[in-house]
């Protein structure tokens, strides 16, 4: 095992498969199981074959019911060889389980993920063919708890396995029991940042599928409920009863614990928490205004964090009657060139579109936004420019008063400077309304045809028939392929043959470089 090249690992897996088959075929080869479990003890980079073998063996055993034991209280253990064998198998199973779970934290790369999958598969098998007789729906919550423990107690970030776990958290029963288990284990006084990160991520994954917040539309959803995926369902057994209210309660409990942690200590955790809160938890919370403090603090933090918090604040303001004093000033301050580098710019643009869709806003404020957005569009990467211009067009369409910024009705006066002051922090005082959108008209000369036509559209926003369109930011680096796919009627060449490597007119490379002369 010291030098495990590719061939040997193949050999090992073949060997293991043989052993497993032999073991499953007859009890004569019972020792094979012990051998296989022995493999865990060895130092290895790659536990995958062992894990796979274990998965095969125990699923089969569970299916056969070899592990099934009816516990009758006050009855001594039977000493028959059959009973002993069963007990030995149970012991093996427990050992294998603990090995697998420890594999999740200790092994490397692929094996970690495989360990998780194996554990979940075993979990499923056990759920379907429980070890002990149970009435009602059986779900091995204890096993799930050990898995979660492995996730949370790790000293490293478990984002890869947790992401993998999403496959299983999509099952309704896993979600419900998972939330329950997580809520039970989340009490902790001063968790490490890594714990918090793992915890938040796990919670996030558990909430991937929507929990029906209200049961008011129960009748409609009955059809859909049947299609829900349930991990441990067997035909003929009592089916799983999904209870959204319980789920919600558990989720609330999970968050209630998490709230008390110093989430805002580290920007990464904070970002994670905000993302979770904003995207998943907000509609589920019983008392969302409890999150207000956290959101407000985050909003002050600046950068991407405040962008995330903004959405939460919007939710609070819209649905929970919370008044945030100068939210528009905050939003205004967020539009800085740095926003193009962040991953959340799309979210910000979308939110800004929603925020500014109110028709009760003062014109000067909206004008300041329009002006600032178009200033930003001047320096933005092309795909963002198009989105910003769309946003500006929407502003112009929703607030007809702004049309003076693109078509001034009176005879225009010639000014010596732009009345708009970009540095002014207060949007209303920036004097944007007496300015014009010269930036947009400059963007009509943008090199990208799409941007140029978007600028045209902004300037055509005075047209009463145009309607606001939702802002879309295309993916980065997709523009190139999109342009290449465009079809043309003809391909225009230069009409003067180049002499050497310089253009007859307009050569600039040689102008600035001493190489191509």
């Amino acid at each position, binding site marked *: 095992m010291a030098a495990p090249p590719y061939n040997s690992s193949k050999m090992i897996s073949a060997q293991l498969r043989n052993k497993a088959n032999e073991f499953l075929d007859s009890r004569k080869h019972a020792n094979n199981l012990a051998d296989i479990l022995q493999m865990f003890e060895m130092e290895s980079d790659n536990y995958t074959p062992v894990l796979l073998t274990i998965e095969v063996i125990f699923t089969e055993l569970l299916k056969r019911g070899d592990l099934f034991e009816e516990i009758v209280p006050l009855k001594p253990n039977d000493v028959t060889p059959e009973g002993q064998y069963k007990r030995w198998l149970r012991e093996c199973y427990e050992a294998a389980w603990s090995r697998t779970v420890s594999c999740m934290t200790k092994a490397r790369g692929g094996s970690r993920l495989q360990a998780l999958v194996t554990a979940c598969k075993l979990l499923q098998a056990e759920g379907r063919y429980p070890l002990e007789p149970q009435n009602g729906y059986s779900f091995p919550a204890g096993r799930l708890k050990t898995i979660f423990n492995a996730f949370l107690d790790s000293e490293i970030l478990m984002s890869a396995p947790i992401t993998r776990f999403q496959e299983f958290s999509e099952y309704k029963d896993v979600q419900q029991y998972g939330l329950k288990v997580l809520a039970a284990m989340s009490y902790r006084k001063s968790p490490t940042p890594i714990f918090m990160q793992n915890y938040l991520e796990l919670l996030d994954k558990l909430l991937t599928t929507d929990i029906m917040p209200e049961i008011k539309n129960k009748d409609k959803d009955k059809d859909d409920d049947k299609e829900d995926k349930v991990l441990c369902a067997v035909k003929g057994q009592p089916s799983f009863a999904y209870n959204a209210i319980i789920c919600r309660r558990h989720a609330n409990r999970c968050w209630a614990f998490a709230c008390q942690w110093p989430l805002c200590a580290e920007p990464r955790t904070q970002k994670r928490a905000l993302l979770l809160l904003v995207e998943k938890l907000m509609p589920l919370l019983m008392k969302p205004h409890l999150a207000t403090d956290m959101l407000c603090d985050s909003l002050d933090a600046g950068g991407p964090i405040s962008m995330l918090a903004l959405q939460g604040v919007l939710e609070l303001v819209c649905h929970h009657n919370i008044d945030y004093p100068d939210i528009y000033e905050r939003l205004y301050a967020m539009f800085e060139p740095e926003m*193009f*580098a962040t991953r959340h710019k799309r979210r910000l643009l979308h939110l800004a579109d929603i925020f500014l869709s109110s028709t009760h806003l003062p014109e000067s404020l909206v004008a300041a936004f329009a002006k600032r957005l178009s*200033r930003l569009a*001047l*320096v*933005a*990467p*092309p795909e963002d420019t198009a989105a910003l211009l769309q946003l500006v067009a929407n502003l112009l369409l929703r607030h007809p008063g702004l049309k003076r910024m*693109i*078509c*001034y*009705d009176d005879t*225009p006066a*010639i*000014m010596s400077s*732009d009345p708009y002051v*970009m540095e002014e922090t207060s949007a209303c005082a920036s004097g944007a309304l007496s300015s*014009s959108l*010269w*930036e947009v*008209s*400059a963007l009509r*000369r*943008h*090199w*990208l*045809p*799409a941007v*140029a*036509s978007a600028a*045209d559209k902004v*300037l055509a926003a005075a047209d009463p028939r145009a309607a606001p369109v939702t802002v*879309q930011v295309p993916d980065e*680096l997709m523009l*190139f*392929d999109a*342009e*290449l796919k*465009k*079809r*043309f009627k003809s*391909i*225009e*060449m*230069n009409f*003067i*043959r*180049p002499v*050497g*490597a*310089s*253009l007859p007119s*307009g*050569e*600039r*490379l040689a102008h*600035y*470089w*001493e*190489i191509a002369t």
Partner: protein
Amino acid sequence: MAKTKIKRNSGLSDKVNNKKKVDLNKKKLNPFEVHINREKFKVLGQKSKHDRGLPGVSRAKAIQKRKETIGTEMKLMHKTNAFIDRRIGEKNNQLSSDDRVLARFAAERIKQYSKKNIYNLADDEILTHRGQTLEEIEKFDDPRSSDEEDEDGRKMGGLDDEFVSEGHFGGGVLSKTESKDGARSHKDLIEQLIAESKKRKAEKQKEKEQTLDLTEKLDTEWKDLQPVVFKRTKVEEPSLIDKILDKAEKRNEDYDRAMRELKFDRRGVPSDGLKNEEKVAKEEKQRLEKLEMEREMRMHAREIDKSSMPKEQNKHRSADDLDDNFELDDGPDFMLAYDKDGKPLVPEHIFKQNSGFLSSKTKFNEGISDSSDADNEHDENEESDDEKESSDEDDEEQDGHNIIGNDTEDKLNIECETDVKEKDQNMESDSSTSHKEKSIDDNDMTEKQNDDEKLDIDNDINLDNNINESEDEADDDMINFKDYQGLKQSDQESEDEIMENDEVEERISSFFDVLNSEGDNLKELLSGKTPQQQSLVLERLIKSYDPSRAENNKELLCRLYAHLLQYIDDLFSNLEEEDEVLNSFKTFKKIAPYMYDLALSNVLICKKYLCELLKKKHEDFKINKKRVPDLDTLIFFKLVSLLYATSDYRHPVATPCFVFMSEILTKCQFQSPYSISRGIFITSLLLEYTVLSKRLVPAAINFLRGILFLSTETSILNPIQVIPPFRLHKDKKVLVLEDDCNKMAEMYKMAAKDLVAKEATNEFKIRCVISSVNMLHEMFENFGDIECQECLFAPHIQLLNRLNLELYPKKVGFRISEVIQDMKQKLETKTFTLLTKEKKKPKALKLYEPDIQEVFTGRKHSKLPREKLESNKLKHKHKREMKGALREIRRDKAFIASVKIKQKIQSDNVRKEKVKQIYKEAAIQQGELNKLKRMK
């Protein structure tokens, strides 16, 4: 007063007087002359022309007119001669005698001039005959021309010396006695002479005719023979026959040479007239101007598109249309009908829209997909109207893609031929799949298969070579470099040697170019040569595969283009030394014009090759977005700017390049000299792309801002904003000049060594700063006319102000401060005009063609067809004219009769007079006679 005036310029006054007299005559109507015609009915509003007349006057006029016309004619009847006075101005009594003389002189001059023009033909214009000037034709190389004849003729026709001396000047006593022939009369001599010359002439003529006949015969025979000769040479005979031919070759050498001379003899007639230099230059200029205009049209394509758009939409207009662009419903109506099964027959698009009637669920789905489609289209931009074209074009496009795909496959094949067999399988599978799709051109298929076969055949042979070659390739750069150094010195000396060398090489190239190995051939050809030699080789290669020579040469050239792309790629990858960079650029400089030629020869396919290459490069870039691509990518941007019109509004090659470059400038990290120098390279290329169109490239402006930011000290207290790829407090200020470089020589351009620099030296820093300042200035100038110039460039000026100019070389510092001053000044004088909408012209209501109906006249015939009416009208007119003419004739006759009677009467009177005279004289005579009688 008035009278004196009149007297002074008497000529004028005369005229006026005459006129006045005429006027007076007109006005003074003699009441006895006026005859009033009685009107039968008074018609309101009708202007009667004939209510009054002047019968006496008009009759007198008519008689006068007849006198002048028929009268004179009658006078001149039966007379052959006529006397016409043609002296200029003789009859015009308003001309003075001086004027008359002047006029005559002028006329004389004109006459002279025109005559001169007629006969002096070759004065100012050159006459041509079949495109050749007459002067050139005057070489008279036609054997039939009379020149020769003249030469001989003079000899023949002229008298010989003997005769001249004897016949003309001979005679006299002395000579006669000396003559041996004795007395031979002069007449005899002459006769003999004439006879002789006639004979000789006839002989000559005969001979000439014979040669002419012969040449003509030969010509026709040769023409018959020509195709046979050409055909024979085209079909290359196999080597067996060569052996036999070898022996005969020596004998045939002369013959062959003569035949080749004949074969290559040019025998076409020039079709177009020869243009002189001026004309050619003028036409060239016009052509360029036209192309330039087209280019500008494309540059502003958007506006044109817009203006042309509504024309297409011009459909039906209602008479009640108010021109407010209100549309009632645009979809055309359709008739709802049902087929046999009772399903409605509805066009598909309408079905989609209206499927809500049929089933709610489908409607929902459709609705979603529809809207997304619409969104997509919306994204795609309205310019791409081609996309609305029918689906079969889509198929075509797919074809195209397939072809490209296969071609690239092919290219790959060529690149790594060591595993040809594997690839072959690939190709086969490829072709089979494409068969399934039935979307590939048949031609292409066959070609491909041919390739495969050839590959198979050549496989064994080439394998060994290829291994060697691949080894060579590995050392390619090294060899190149060494050779370059070696040859650099001996470049001029061994010019002749090079030529010989090249000739050998060319042989190789033209004979060894088997389809599959041309990539290696090319490398073999070009490696280890100076750029100049490479260009020579390339030129020959291209010439030898000129599309006019053979059918598939065009294809071959396209392949050559692809290989050249590959060659350039190889040339620019892994450059680590300054010399290597310089050498590569020199080679590129030589290759580039040929790339242009090749790309021009087949625009579509070459574009596809280039796009594929760019796509590959972009894929590589996507893998690590933070790293700036190396020169082997950047050089293709330069190539694009050399080949294609980068100023277009949207261009199939240039726009993706724009995207690529802008992505590099916005996504990459610029921290090392490697990335910074390449960034500056890209920025200068972006400037080159936009130099004509003056488009706004934010990425380049931001990049310059970043470079200036990296080269200035900024404190945390007063930061200046930068745009994302640069970070405010995180970036290391790599370009800040720390040492005093005041004494250093000034430099303005980036150098090749900057592309391979490992560390940011002081020189590097200075060069970066000065070139970015220069580029910044140019960009600034480009956007002089837009209002937001200030907000674009204000941060740059702030940054420039913080540069510690004292550390830079004097002239560099001076230049920078100059730029700052200039920019500041221009921004200060900038004016801002509020945006207004262009005032629309009020649209006029559309007017309709007037519906003209004939006025009701109550006539019977008004309902006749138009032609009939017309002809009736004409007939009527004809009748009236006839009547008038008859009347005229009658009057003429009367006039003639009256003239005749007058003459008759006159002559009668004369006769009577004469008779009376005679009688009188006779009576007198009788009286005298009687008197005499009485006297006797």
